[in-house]
């Protein structure tokens, strides 16, 4: 199992870490029992994600995919962001080890949950 340079970079220097106190949408996926949990916060203006933050408890892949997901989503319209799929995140990181592919789901799913919460408001 070997992580790509990009995974290691996003793991070591995660982008957009934190919370947004009055976020327009918050999505949490996973749970600590399974060893992986990610929360994504978004602020939306004119149908676009203008700010995004995350917090992750989990392995390097979980942290890196969350970081990369926020980078991919920032500035996108909600529809564009909803279209960010699991493989997009893994691809943007130059791939993930096979046993870690489920991690890429976590971050994209948390993003989608945040968007849905925002849309449901």
């Amino acid at each position: 199992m070997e992580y790509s340079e990009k995974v290691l970079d996003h793991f070591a220097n995660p982008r957009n870490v934190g919370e947004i106190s009055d976020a327009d949408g918050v999505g949490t996926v996973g749970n600590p029992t399974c060893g992986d949990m990610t929360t994504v916060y978004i602020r939306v203006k004119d149908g676009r994600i203008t700010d995004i933050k995350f917090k992750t408890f989990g392995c390097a892949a979980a942290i890196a995919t969350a970081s990369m997901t926020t980078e991919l989503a920032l500035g996108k319209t909600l529809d564009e962001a909803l279209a960010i799929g699991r493989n997009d995140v893994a691809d943007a990181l130059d791939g993930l080890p096979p046993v870690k592919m489920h991690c890429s789901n976590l971050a994209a799913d948390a993003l989608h949950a945040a968007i849905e919460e925002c849309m449901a408001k």
Partner: protein
Amino acid sequence: MKRIYLDHAATTAVDREVVQTMMPYFTETYGNASSLHSFGRDARNALDASRQTVADALGAHANEIIFTSGGTESDNLALKGVGKGHIITSSIEHPAILRTCKYLEDHGCDVTYVPVDSYGMVDPGDVESAITDDTTLISVMHANNEVGTIQPIGKIGSIAKDHGILFHTDAVQSFGKTEIDVQRMNIDLLSVSSHKVYGPKGVGALYIRKGVEIEPLLHGGGHEMGMRASTENIPGIVGFAKAASLAIERSEQDTRHLTGLRDMLIAGVMDSIDDVTLNGHPTERLPNNANLRFAFVEGESLLLHLDMKGIAVSTGSACSSASLDPSHVLLALGLAPEDIHGSIRFTLGRENTESEISYVLEVLPEIVGKLRAISPLAER
């Protein structure tokens, strides 16, 4: 970058003196120990001497030692070789025992897995209660590879003896770190592995008490008194024997050194980081094991951050690190899965120094802080 190896329970570097001892057996004394000519006799003499050395380290006789390819083969040979009917083991054994038990269950054996307390300790009373008329074998490890808890195997040995049942112990982690005496401890079969005691990988031994009948695992030429076929790995065996004798020779000194570093590490971490707990037994533990639980963070992340600073540690045992399942050992101790995910094993070695531990204590709080800062669990 300086690299600090704190994963000695996974494997050790080979001692330079051991390597030197092995060298002539690759290119000069390279004969097959079964050959009748001088090359063969020289190899045979080296083999015999090595067998005596390993026997001495265990309080055994030379003809009670069978060389194998490692701890796993020794464990498999012991359990498959004598296990029939009902077998008693513990729930925190190494996979080499547990998966072999699973195999034996699939082939008609019954296996009782005795639980452990929250320190990872087996209660000999539980072992005794589990005995049935069909019990042929008790196998309880000497020291656990993840949390380092040392089991009361002398007591278990006498229970086994009283009931006329064979007793095997996996001493892969304890060998060279705590005293072993197969007579005093009433051990009938005992597994050791060379690469955990600064010997080469791919070599181990099984002690088989004289008179214990065992079905071989590897059939072929009549090597190892007919109990383990295959051309003997003379350089490996010679290296293992050298490593074993160094371990015995240095045991007091090593124990003092390791215990000192271990306690420095544990105290230092506890002092500088909140919400840290020691897994395993506070006193009945291997001198080189510190298994620590860092609340709110996940172990692999911690491991990788340490790795980026040149520090090698492990989550659970090396052989299961590739899997994502929580450690069966920590589960058996009663830990919640999220606590298991935040556990890190530091296992120290002979060459580690105080300044290395100081360096770990210097970088660890920042890493834990960083991971807690991004953890959604930390503020709860």
